[in-house]
Each structure stands twice: as C-alpha cells, then as structure tokens.
C-alpha cells in the first residue's frame, strides 16, 4: 500500500456539510469519501492505493481535478485498487457533484 497526500490552497467553492461516498473499492475501481472540514480554505486529498509507484500520475489527476472544481475546506479520502486515471477522474467528479448540488434521488448520504 502507498499513501499519497495532496493539498491545494485557496479554494473558492464551498461544499455541503454532508459527507458523501462515491464508488466502491474493487479491482480497477476506488471509493472516495468527501467531507467538509475546516482547512483554511484548502482542499486535501489523501490516497491509499494498492498500486504503488504512480505518485506522479496521481498528482496530475488530482491537480486537474482541483483546477476543475476549486473546492474549499474539503477533504477527500480515497481507497484505491488500481483504478485508471479515467476512472479516478470520473469518481472525483461524481464526488464533487454530490456535495455541490442537490444529490439525485438514488445517491447516498453517509
């Protein structure tokens, strides 16, 4: 397992108070827990991944995510089982959508 930490300062978009979960931990997939927490305006991402050695890729994917969303006081915790960047980006967007607009009816609060 490898743990990666990323922090992006000065976000501008607030998120809802409700923690949300996107995705599941399975081969080639991941789960993302997104929570509102006081981080001085920053967005933090913690990745626990079974696929070691992809720190550079993660940094790029998460940096682009931050550019798209600019979340503020948000913490994302990720359990990953070798998801590709395409899947990671999709889940990140789903997670962000779930806390920035009213969730669709089948989405869960956690």
């Amino acid at each position: 397992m490898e743990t990666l930490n990323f922090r992006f300062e000065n976000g501008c978009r607030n998120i809802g108070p409700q923690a949300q979960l996107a995705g599941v931990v399975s081969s080639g997939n991941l789960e993302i827990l997104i929570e509102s927490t006081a981080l001085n305006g920053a967005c933090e991402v913690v990745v626990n991944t079974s696929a070691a050695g992809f720190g550079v890729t993660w940094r790029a994917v998460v940096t682009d995510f931050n550019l798209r969303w600019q979340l503020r006081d948000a913490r994302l915790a990720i359990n990953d089982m070798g998801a590709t960047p395409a899947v990671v980006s999709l889940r990140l967007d789903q997670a962000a959508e779930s806390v920035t607009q009213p969730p669709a009816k089948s989405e869960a609060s956690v």
Partner: protein
Amino acid sequence: MTTPSRIWNTLQINRNQRLDRVRATLGTAISGKIVQAEQTCDLLHQVLDCGDRVCLEGNNQKQADFLSAALATLDPKRINNLHMLQSVLALPEHLDVFERGIASRLDFSFSGPQAARLAKLVSAGKINIGAIHTYLELFARYFVDLTPRVALIVAEAADRHGNLYTGPNTEDTPAIVEATAFKSGIVIVQVNKILDTLPRIDIPGDWVDYVILAPKPHYIEPLFTRDPAQISEIQVLMAMMAIKGIYAEYEVQRLNHGIGFDTAAIELLLPTYAASLGLKGKICKHWALNPHPALIPAIEAGFIESVHSFGSELGMEAYIRARPDIFFVGHDGSMRSNRALCQAAGHYACDMFIGSTLQIDLQGNSSTATLGRIAGFGGAPNMGADARGRRHASPAWLKAGQQARKGKNVIPRGQKLVVQIVETFREHMQPAFVDKLDAWELAEQANMAIPPVMIYGDDVTHILTEEGVANLLMCNTDEEREQAIRGVAGYTPVGMARDQRAVENLRDRGIILRAEDLGIDKRMATRDLLAAKNMKDLVRASGGLYAPPKQFRNW
C-alpha cells in the same frame, strides 16, 4: 535438336502415387471417400511426404481439432519437416507438431492463445517462421507460392460423395480447398456428421479426397460474444464520442468493427444514443462483420440493412435464420460465411474500420505485440488500411480524403477512415500510448525483418480515447500529428509530455475534440444508455431467438 521431353504432370503423378499408397495400406478400411476415424494416423502416414506443405484448417473460431491431434501423433521418423500453413495457431497440438519434430517450418497469420509458447519454440530453434501474414495475404499466397500439398480441413457434415456442408462457419474452407484441389493436392476433411442429403453444398465432393467422421464435434470458440454487463461507463462515453464525433460527422454507412468491448458499446448505443441524434438510416447500414450478438438491438431497431460475415457466432444460428434480409444465408436458411471474401469486402467496400489496440506510438502506429509473445495479426491490418486500389466514391470516403488533402496540390481522391479506440490506460495501469512500441524489441528477440505493426500510423485517421478524439487527417505536419496524439493520451507519460499550448491550438482548429466540444454531457454517459445491459437483454431483444453459449449465461 533433341530436347529431353519434360514431364508436365508430376504433381498429378505424385498425387496418384499417394492415393495408391493409401488404397494399398488401408484397403477395405476405406469405403468410397470415407475413412474410419481409427485409421486417421495410417491415412496421414500414407498421404504425407516429408517436407510437404500442409494447410491445417483452424482459425479463431472453428478448428480441425481431430485432424490436428492426429497429425501431432505421427511418427517423426516417417513424417518430418512439414511446412505448416495455418490461419491461426490456437490449439496445443498446433505446436506439438513442431516440438515433436514432425514439422519445422511455419507460415501463419495469428497465434492468439499459443503466442507465448510459439515465441519460446522459435527462440529454441524448433520453428522456422516464414512470415506472419494477414488472413487475406496468407490466402493469396496459397494461390501463388505457398500452395498446400495436403489440406486438413473441417466441415459440419459430408455426404457419401464427399460433398461438404460447413454450416454457418464456412470461414476459410473455400479458399483452402480451392487452392489445394486445383493444384493436384489432397484434401482430407473431418466432419461431425455423415448425412445422406446435405442441407446445402458448400464444397463440391470432387474437390475432396477423404472424409473422416470425427469422434467429437469440432470445437468452435464463441469469440465475438461480449457480455454487455462488462461494458463500463467510460466505454459508454467513448462510444458516444465515436458516434457523434465520427459516425455522424462522416455519415459512415459501410463499416467494420473490432471485437472489443469498446466497439460493442457503440453497437449497443445505436438504437438509443444514435437514434436520439436522428442518425437512424444515416449511419451504420452495411457491415462486414461477424454476427455479433451485440448487433441484435440495432438490427431490431431497423438501423442495419446488411451484414456479411467472416465466420459465424455460436448461438446466433436461429436468429440469423429468422433475419435472411440482413444476413447472407443459403437456401437451407443457415448462414454462409466466407473469410476471404469478407476480408476483401472489409478492405474495399467499407468506409471505416474502428477497433482497439494495445499500444500506439507517437506516429500513430499501433500494435498488439507484447514481449515474449508472437501473436500475429489476423484480419485487422486489411480492415485497418486505406484501400489504395479503391476507385468508387462515397460521402465518408470523400470527406476523409478532402480533409487529408486540404491545402495540398494533389489530385482529389478519398480515404478510408481508420479509427483506433483505446482507453489511455489498460488494466493494471499499462499505458496505451508509448514512445516506442514493444514491437521493436519483439522483432529483435524473434529475428523478424520488421517490427510487427498491426496498423501503420499513416493509415490511422482518428484516435479516440476517453479524453477525446484526435483527427489525424487534418494535421498538417508531423509535429502537429504528434501533439494531436499526445493531446488525447491522457495521463500516460506520453500524454503528460504534451505541449499544452499546441494542444489547445489543435482543439481550436477542431483537430482535437473533447466530449464538451462535441456537446456531450459526460454525466449522461451511464450504462443506462446501453440498449442491452446484459446477455439476457440480448436474448429478449432477439425475441428469444438468440441462444447464448452456456458460459455467458447467468440464468
């Protein structure tokens, strides 16, 4: 002036000698053309000579498995140095003949499941590979310089005169038998049944020398069945981009698809997404394609007018029989496929090929070769190549040609659309985009004259990934082309090394198209768009006519 008179019929003489040997040895064990299965090895020992070119029928679907097993048990002291000609090396026995010293030389097209073992035998010096071909290329050589002396083929049924019924999996049989029978070769067939009257005759009996009733029906691989349950939302997104960004853009009416899940997703989006864009009747009317079960919803929705096939697909028999306007069927009602003719159709009569690959380099060359495996090509290179001999026009062909030639002082002509559809990473985080194809190293390892490239970069017109579509036709320079490829290569090292400004510039010019540039809302890309989400939905769509093989069922 006395020229020694040349004998002009040595092949016929030799053929008759072999037939005599068989008669002398097997005697009453042969009745007409029918040889008892237990006598197969005796028959082969008599028919074959050392060094013969032997065509063993077998491709990625049906297999002359009984004959190949028999061949592998021959006595290498009596029969050796055979030169094997094969579309596909699929069974262990196909390599056993080399390991046991019965054969030593090989010309083939595809080796799928045996690719790793083939590589080992080659490096151990047990196999001397003449060349790795495409199907059509190999068939062509059967009529030029690789004519089989003996062909070991497979059919569904024979009658007492040796007439053959192949059933829907006619596949390579006509090409092989024609080349062998008309050059004084010997044709031996294994059949599942011997009938008094055949449903139809696919191969005339006088082209066939010996018929063997195999103890077990020959194996057929359901190679083209893709369970819709395994299609991911990313593949749905890519399919949406393909339909809107390429199919609709060029009004592609005649085409061929690869066999992966990426293209299965496209097939399943025709009655839903494509229909919602008003594309019914405008795209995807005529196909050179095996009867993919994933086509059923599009056929039922009236999208598709005709399908000609290389081979058949297990479980589709009753459905095909009930849709004779769509498929090519005999008067008996069952399909007739023909690999050689369908390859020609795919090459000359289709406006587009779209398929997946394992690696793409910065020139757009794509390869499925991986280290330690000699896998070959099959039919993809013929589908995925511009038909330089084509002379008839169609809107899609002309538009592609115009884009490719814009601003150049050349005579107008069209071009085939060749689309590579890949996710930027395969499973286990293997990047699909690389600086240098593994094919180079493989060529070195296996002493090949050239790296085994499946589709050459100069034939590729579009690359489609989850990041977007790159239209290589509109690139003016090699540098632009490289940036266009990097620009859809996602987070692979190749993609991350892009020149961001150049990529945005290409995007402004419509050379790179993102989902949002195409007006596609990524959140719409869910499995709910699939016209069938699982195998049972396909059965339902077929009105119960499609009968999936048992390994694909969950009911």
